[in-house]
């Protein structure tokens, strides 16, 4: 086996040093009755070429071919990934290192993540961003826990019904065992979270609002901050489409105390939903409550600048049962990818890409309206929106996937049973006017 370097002679020589006579004898410290009687039953080992064939067969039985057109977002977005990003991120010095416990030989990871933290705070208008979390849903659950722990009198967290359905489920999984509850804020006929309903809710430690929300609509974050503050709860903003903040006013502008977001749009492939990139940011006041790793600037014994993991006293390996979270490994390599993406697009590029996303989505919506679709909400959106489809659309949608490798929207009924026949559409910079025109022709 090419990954195992030991020759027969090596094994003999090494066994001699250990004083054992065979490899099996190395396991004499394990009582016999605890050893397994059967060997592991697995398929026969494949050569690299057999593996290639097997994996290509599996990969190609997913519908994600080269001609594939994706008009679905819902938390996982199709964006151009410049060739330079997979090229640079594949450098094994980044990929095969671990958490930078030895900063003297980890300055690449450390400076890279420090730059990531900085660019994320800039994108979101916040003071502090962590070195990453698993995904938006888990970051949002941690943000909810911060709010609940801070406010000991309240044991509920108010969460918009237009927060991603999976994220609401994750929050529930995380907070329920400790005896906390979610109270869901309903949505209005404009496809926005109902701020008046929130005003009537009591015993709330925090308010979580997603913008753009799950329907793609842009929420009035200012109004929610005001209500959250009046109730002495933390205001938590979330998002699944990071590129929206190349164009929109950011959550920091509206006074968010904590921000949990998904960074998959920043150069990371969809990969059937993971790994993505959890973004978690806060105001300076929240710095010591944030879970997970933080990189800080310092200097070495010669006075040269350098970077280290810092504020570790919040973390599990020091605080153990009193830690702010149990997180250890985060999604570091994807944080580095996102930093590379932000450096590549830069100030000019992020604005232009964000605008093109919005332009294409507006064009797609107008085109679908002409094709007999009905706009569900007349509310400003970024790159996703909801339409009520004409009768017979579902069959056409399935045929489009089979015949043209085109995913024309996602049914919302599974998540919002009241929204029968309603579909969530997404358009990004990767679809051309021609793709949109073609789609509209097919579904007419």
């Amino acid at each position, binding site marked *: 086996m090419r990954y195992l370097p030991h020759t027969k002679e090596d094994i003999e020589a090494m066994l001699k040093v250990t004083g054992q006579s065979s490899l099996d004898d190395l396991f004499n410290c394990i009582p016999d009755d605890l050893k397994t009687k059967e060997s592991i039953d697995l398929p026969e080992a494949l050569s690299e070429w057999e593996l290639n064939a097997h994996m290509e067969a599996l990969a190609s039985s997913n519908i994600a071919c080269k001609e594939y057109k994706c008009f679905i977002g819902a938390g996982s977005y199709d964006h151009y990934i410049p060739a330079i990003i997979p090229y640079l991120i594949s450098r094994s010095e980044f990929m095969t*290192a671990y958490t930078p*416990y030895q900063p003297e030989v980890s300055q690449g990871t450390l400076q890279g993540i420090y730059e990531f933290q900085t660019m994320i705070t800039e994108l979101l208008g916040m003071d502090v961003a962590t070195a990453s979390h698993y995904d938006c849903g888990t970051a949002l659950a941690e943000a909810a826990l911060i709010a609940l722990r801070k406010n000991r009198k309240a044991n509920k967290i108010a969460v918009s019904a237009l927060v991603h359905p999976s994220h609401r489920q994750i929050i529930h999984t995380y907070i329920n065992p400790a005896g906390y509850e979610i109270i869901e804020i309903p949505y209005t006929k404009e496809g926005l979270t109902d701020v008046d309903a929130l005003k009537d809710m009591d015993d709330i430690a925090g308010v979580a609002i997603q913008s753009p929300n799950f329907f793609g609509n842009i929420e009035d974050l200012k109004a929610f901050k005001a209500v959250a503050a009046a109730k002495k709860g933390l205001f938590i903003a979330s998002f699944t489409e990071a590129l929206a903040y190349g164009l929109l006013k950011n959550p920091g502008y509206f006074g968010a105390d904590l921000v949990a977001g998904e960074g998959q749009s920043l150069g990371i492939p969809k990969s059937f939903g993971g790994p993505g990139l959890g973004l978690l940011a806060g105001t300076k006041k929240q710095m010591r409550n944030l879970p997970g790793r933080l990189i800080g600037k310092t200097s070495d014994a010669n006075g040269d600048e350098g970077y280290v993991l810092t504020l570790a006293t919040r973390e599990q390996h020091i605080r153990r049962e009193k*830690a702010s979270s149990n997180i250890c490994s985060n999604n570091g390599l994807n944080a580095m990818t996102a930093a590379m993406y932000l450096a590549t697009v830069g100030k000019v590029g992020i604005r232009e890409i964000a605008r093109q996303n919005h332009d294409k989505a507006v064009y797609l919506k107008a085109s679908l309206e002409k094709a007999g679709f009905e706009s569900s909400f007349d509310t400003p959106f970024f790159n996703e929106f909801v339409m009520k489809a004409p009768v017979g659309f579902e069959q056409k949608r399935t045929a489009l996937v089979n015949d043209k490798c085109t995913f024309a929207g996602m049914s919302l009924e599974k998540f919002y049973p009241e929204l029968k026949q309603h579909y969530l559409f997404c358009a990004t910079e990767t679809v051309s006017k021609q793709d949109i025109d073609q789609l509209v022709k097919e579904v007419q």
Partner: protein
Amino acid sequence: MNQQPGTSGLIFNEPLLWDKSCKGRCAMSLPKPDVERANLDESLTGDAPELPQLSELDVARHYTRLSQWNFGVDSGMYPLGSCTMKYNPKTNEVQAARQGFAAAHPFAGDKFSQGALKLMYNLEQYLAEITGFDAVTLQPAAGAHGELAGILIIHAYHAKSGKQRSKIIIPDTAHGTNPASATLCGYESINIKSGENGILEPAAVAAVMDEDTAGIMVTNPNTLGFFESNIKEIADIVHSKGGLVYGDGANMNAIMGVVKPGEIGIDVLHLNLHKTFATPHGGGGPGSGPVAVVKALEPFLPIPRVEKDLDSYKLITDSPDTIGRLHTFYGHFSVMIKAYSYILSMGSKGLSDVSKLAVLNANYVKESLKGTLNLPYDMPCMHECVFNDEFQKEHHITTMDMAKRLLDYGFHPPTVYFPLVVEGAFMVEPTETESKEYIDQFIDAVKAIAKEAKDDPEKLHKAPLLTKVTRLDEVTAARKPCLRG
């Protein structure tokens, strides 16, 4: 290979991204606009974020230079105990990057995602077979996330049985993530000490186990590198009081093909695909932390689950006793692809050989260095061995000094000051992919450093001498945090 790998060379300085920025540059080939500009209301839009403005070469050079300041498994031996820094096969990266996987949308629907679902289903089966359990979830995003899933399962099991419990037993050799995971479920950690020979004594467990205790969290092999040979007796004690046994499988690399944790009394176990199954650590993730359970705990696994129905695969969310959802989609799918490719490349014999050679390498290091460094527990070890700095104390040399000096010799240091039960711990896990030659170089380097500790201790206090930066001021970093530029 008599020469040590550490040397000095030309290392480049590289400023922060924004210090290279020049107004008007952009490294992205911007797509051409082909539809009309649609303007959002100005009350909604903000200024463009102040990101750096760079050319493509600026970006390429920046990250190339940064990468050269890093040490990875491909750079040299990385014997970081309990982290299993084995070689990460390159073919696995190729497999994960295939268009059909990388471009797959998580909401494409079961019918159009058969390849992905089949891979997940098969991987669950393989991991169940390797560990001896009945069911597996791949959803947890990392080891600590898997631990959380496992403790949530234990919590849900007790809730279902009608009476929740308030405590959980955690040995002193546990990873810090164990007590932190228990706290998230509201369990109080009851810490117990391991016995004189570095393993748990059944009596210590029996003394604290009662009907208000949810169970025990055991790392096996433990973080001293020893197999917990009383595990079955301990499991019987815990089970007799209605508790469950959680196994931390971070050290599974030592026992594949030898012990199946599901057969020795463990009820729920997490694995780290980025340790045992050779997926890259990525400078701190993304990892993947599947959880394996016995039949009785299967109903509590997170949703969605993958099921096979004749020849097709589907995602199931209808599971009334589930702990719920832990990830927005299905977990770290591309990491699963790499682990799956690894298992298929190795086969049954290959994986058994992995554990045998990992244990051989660790015992070889232990025997070779035991006169040089103090070995607090001199017993046959599994995949890692723990020394400390007792012999060097007379020269005022600490584990940290020796670790830093190892960098100059071209090695990543072992895990230091963990496990907490050994003062000044120096925890070596060579892994099976290191050859005898590389290990001999490492042994020679440690011996040379031990000699320097006697002859030239000042050199060790100043180490590392060859790295881009030397020891960093962590105290000031924490006291006056500067977390953004």
